């Protein structure tokens, strides 16, 4: 009789459904997973070490590149940590802008997740649909910051500048012309806020489209229902946060429980799952997109009615206006010191966390009084989630590994840092 041995399979690091550079060493008994050992770090860029060698403001751009599908949410935790240590007051309008962009970011992230997750387990259309809407949202990013993804828009004390009064339009080209062009520019006639408002009007209809494709789809259900079940007790033990924790039925959302910025003034609900399987986490995230849409709507309304400053007036931390810097000696000195040396933070330490689309994204910052962080630790939600991959996949079939990687919403920028 031939000897029966377990089979060891190397999955990745360049597998399309590994969501980046995950190398997974799988031990298989037939088609069943016996052991899964993720090897991470292939995208390690030493963000924490680099931050120790840069003035505080120069690391904001690195935050975008952590979880590179929810850029502004990462920046948010970072600038909040600095603001906490400086006891810096953020103007209310800036808080609303940040909340609005956090929620835009959440939709961006969930669309990316939904598209990729569906594509991984065999539904291609959703991916194309999701990217259609992502395009509009990335235009919003571009309108405020000039960059479609790595915005560097949030600054300690507020945001870089106010929302623009005009929205970029498509121009005549051999791909867009005539009626098609008019249709593309239909919602771009007014300001950015008008554009976002128009988006929030049509977005619920789009979510219905995704749900039509997936929620009652037989194949989708076969691939997700009862896959990767995590009990609430285990979810807590495994350090789950965000939709992963809520999918297991624990109602925990930092936006509600430890509100930051203006979340306590906004009306929204926290969707919670019941069984803790992949399908529940799908439902939670889809419901979250609808809630985010609600929040954006409220922010747009407030922002239209309340103009005002968008960045704190303390020129030790925020740059003076260009006009001032050219006519006022003190402003010029502030400008020079801020951009050469930066500002110093008194000796202290702080942990600030935001409800990132993937979970709790935290920054632990230690300062020794210098103009650079002494230590900056990024608490990435994906790191804890991926660590549970072995527990979640054990006993499942090899094809389910792909579903489980998808449901964890892994992005290697933040896992490897």
């Amino acid at each position, binding site marked *: 009789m031939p000897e029966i041995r377990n089979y060891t399979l190397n999955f990745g690091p360049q597998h399309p459904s590994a969501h980046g550079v995950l190398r997974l060493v799988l031990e298989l008994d037939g088609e069943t997973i016996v052991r899964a050992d993720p090897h991470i770090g292939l995208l390690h860029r030493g963000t924490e070490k680099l931050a120790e060698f840069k003035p505080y403001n120069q690391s904001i751009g690195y935050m975008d590149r952590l979880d590179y599908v929810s850029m502004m949410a990462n920046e948010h935790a970072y600038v909040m940590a600095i603001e906490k240590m400086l006891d*810096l007051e953020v103007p209310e309008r800036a808080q609303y802008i940040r909340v609005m962009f956090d929620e835009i970011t959440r939709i961006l992230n969930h669309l990316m997740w939904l598209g990729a997750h569906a594509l991984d387990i065999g539904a291609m259309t959703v991916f194309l649909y999701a990217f259609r809407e992502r395009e509009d949202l990335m235009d919003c990013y571009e309108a405020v910051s000039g960059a479609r993804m790595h915005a560097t828009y949030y600054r300690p004390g507020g945001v870089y500048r106010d929302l623009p009064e005009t929205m970029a339009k498509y121009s005549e080209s051999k791909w867009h012309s005539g009626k098609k062009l008019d249709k593309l520019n239909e919602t771009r006639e007014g300001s950015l806020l008008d554009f976002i408002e128009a988006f929030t009007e049509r977005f619920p209809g789009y979510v219905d489209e995704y749900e039509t494709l997936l929620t009652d789809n037989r194949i989708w259900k076969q691939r997700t229902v009862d896959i990767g079940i995590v009990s609430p007790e285990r979810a807590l033990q495994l350090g789950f946060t965000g939709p992963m924790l809520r999918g297991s039925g624990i109602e925990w959302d930092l936006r509600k429980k430890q509100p930051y910025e203006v979340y306590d003034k906004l009306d929204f609900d926290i969707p919670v799952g019941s069984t803790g399987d992949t399908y529940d986490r799908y439902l939670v995230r889809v419901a979250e997109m609808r809630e985010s849409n609600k929040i954006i709507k409220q922010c747009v309304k407030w922002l239209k009615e309340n103009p005002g400053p968008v960045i704190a007036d303390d020129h030790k931390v925020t740059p003076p206006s260009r006009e001032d810097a050219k006519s006022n000696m003190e402003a010029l000195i502030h400008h020079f010191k801020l951009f050469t040396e*930066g500002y110093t933070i008194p000796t202290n330490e702080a942990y600030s966390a935001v409800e990132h689309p993937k979970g709790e994204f935290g920054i632990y910052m230690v300062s020794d009084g*210098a103009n650079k962080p002494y230590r900056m630790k990024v608490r990435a939600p994906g790191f804890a989630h991926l660590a549970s991959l072995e527990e979640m996949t054990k006993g499942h079939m090899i094809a389910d590994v792909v579903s489980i990687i998808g449901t964890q919403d892994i992005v290697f920028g933040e896992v490897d840092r």
Partner: protein
Amino acid sequence: MKQSVLDLQNKINDVLGGRVVSSNIALDELTIELKPDDAIDAFTMLRDDLGFEQLIDLCGIDYLDFGQANWETMKAANTGFSRGVFDFAVEEDEEAKNQERRFAVVYHLLSIQNNIRLRVKVFPESTQLPTVDSVIQIWSCANWFEREAFDLFGILFNNHPDLRRILTDYGFVGHPLRKDFPLTGHVEMRYDAEKGRVVYEPVSIENRVNVPRVIREDASPKV
């Protein structure tokens, strides 16, 4: 100062008693220090009696250069700060490297039932071979976090089932987040066409400081 944080401080002092070496509140965050010997008991009590069911984060920290600046700003000097290539690597000061309380392990705990956070620090006794007990038995997610602290700081965790490197390359030497590890690293990698394989060589670039590290007690923003 928030009342809930004060209450927590009193409660922790009651429950843990002499196990707490120090506890202080800054920016509405409570930090306690535990001795490495009975940290496991204390963590178990924190989880079971005080409701800290989640370990949010675990990380190392190296206090070697704490409070040291590149550039003296408190008194007048007749030289400015050169922006050229300048080696700031302090001479191998073995004594400083072996200073007590150089490394710390920082735990961030979250209680979902009480909606409160806590920061715990444990300073390993030895600096040569910094070792603390693993908390995997208390919070399963500590596994990877401890591997990361081992990888980046060389802190060892007793009773950890699988203390391998996690973020750095296969075959990496050194612990990159230690303060005596240069930003440029020690080796660089390239493809050698003659040998037909990737080779590692000592780094050819020098450490460069564009913006000096400055400590200004007088110029901290108005707080």
